[in-house]
Each structure stands twice: as structure tokens, then as C-alpha cells.
């Protein structure tokens, strides 16, 4: 029963985790917008999400019930790639802060969307549990 609830919420949890990780990566780009030779990084959200959803059963074997389940909460870590700048700057920095801030806001809005989907799912679950 409980693992079914886990599976029911898994896509939402994965989406929230990946959105949070992407906001971390994008905020690092923004923080380093004046650092010489810093290369902007990002990951392919679609690929990471597909990877996280298909990885559900490929967990580390636990031979004792006292072992921690390392992948249970976080899912897979996405593969970071370097961004191709439209206008490279003279100091070797590839951060284009206006584009990055756009991506950061876009990511924040999608995080909020994932949050509202999650709370809808929780509400639906509560309705089913109460049975009234």
C-alpha cells in the first residue's frame, strides 16, 4: 500500500528534485557571471526526468534492513553539460546573465507548477483516504 503511494507521488517528487537541482546550477552560473574563465553549465531536463523515472527499480541492493537506501530520496544525479554561448566574452566567461536569469525564472515557475501538481495529488489522495 505505502509503496503504491510512493509510486503515485514519484513523478512529482522527481520533478521537484530536478527543478531544485537545476535552480542550483543556474544560480551558480549567475553567481559566477563576473568570474574569468568560468564556463556556464546546465542539464537537459527532459533527459534527466526520463532517467529519473526509469531508474526507479535500479536501486542499490540492500542485503540488510539496516542499510540506508541511498537513491530512494534523491533519484539520479543529472549529467551536467557546458553551454554554447551566443556571444563569448573576452575573459573566457560563457555566462550570459540575461539569458541565465530568464532560464532561472522559467525554472522557478515550473517548480511552482510541479508544487501545485504535487499538492493536487496529495489532496486527491486525502479525498480517497477519507472515503466520505
Amino acid at each position, binding site marked *: 500500500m505505502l509503496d503504491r503511494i510512493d509510486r503515485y507521488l514519484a513523478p512529482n517528487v522527481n520533478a*521537484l*528534485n530536478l527543478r*531544485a*537541482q537545476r*535552480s*542550483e*546550477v543556474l*544560480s*551558480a552560473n*549567475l*553567481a*559566477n*557571471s*563576473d*568570474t*574569468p574563465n*568560468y564556463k556556464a*553549465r546546465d542539464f537537459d531536463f527532459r533527459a534527466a526526468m526520463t532517467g529519473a523515472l526509469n531508474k526507479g527499480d535500479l536501486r542499490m541492493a540492500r542485503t540488510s534492513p539496516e542499510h540506508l537506501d541511498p537513491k530512494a530520496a*534523491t533519484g539520479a544525479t543529472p549529467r*551536467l553539460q557546458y553551454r554554447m554561448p551566443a556571444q563569448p566574452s573576452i575573459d573566457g566567461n560563457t555566462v550570459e*546573465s540575461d539569458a541565465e*536569469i530568464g532560464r*532561472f*525564472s522559467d525554472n*522557478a515557475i515550473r*517548480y*511552482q507548477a510541479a*508544487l501545485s501538481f*504535487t*499538492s493536487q495529488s*496529495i489532496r486527491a489522495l486525502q479525498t480517497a483516504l477519507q472515503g466520505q
Partner: protein
Amino acid sequence: MGLFTVFDIASSALSAQTQRLNVVASNMANADSAVSADGTPYRAKQIVFQAVPINRGSASQAVKVSGIVDDPAPPRLVYDPNHPLADAKGYVTFPNVNVVEEMANMISASRSYQMNTDVMNTAKSLLLRTLALGQ
């Protein structure tokens, strides 16, 4: 992890940009200081930023000020024979501060600071909404 790390990264950038602004203020204030503490003309300072991993083994990088170096540009020579510091030919050595460059530096620092506070505010509102999940 995730959104909490955003605070660490953005605050590292805020402190780095504050130091940059400090250096700009020092350069601007001393643009005409023909004598500094060691008796020579003041030399413009430039800040050097460096990207450092936020945690061990983490891919995300925060900003660190790796050092403040003296600007290698030659000093500004002004012909003023009546100045008490004038040399035998009548030239006074003034600091190598380029006021135009410093103004541009100041604007860039303040824009970066604003951008990072925006990032922090966004992360904060996302976390608050996450805390209200399921209510």
C-alpha cells in the same frame, strides 16, 4: 542540496561583489592621492574572482575573491612645477586610477549584486511554498 545551496551560492556572490565595490570605492577615493601610506603614489587595486566548488565533490561553484592585485598600468604624470612633490623636470606622479573604468566597474558590480539578491528572493519564495505543501 537543491534550493538551500542556492542561498550559499548567491551569498558568496553577494560578498564577492561587495568586496569589488569596496575596491572600486578605494580606487575612486584615492584617484588623486599622490602619496599613500608608504610614501609612493597610490596604485589602483583590481579584484580577482575565482570559482570554487560549493561542497566537496559538488559540481556547482560559488565565487571566491582569490586576491586583490595592484593594477600594472603606468602612473599618471602631470606637469606642475609648483607642486611640492614635483620631480626635477616638474612632473608629479599621480595614481594610475582610471575613473571611467572604475565607474563601469561599479555599475557592473551593483547590477550583479541586484541579480543575486533576486535569485535569493526567488529561492526563498520557492522554499516557503514547498513548506506549505499538503496543507
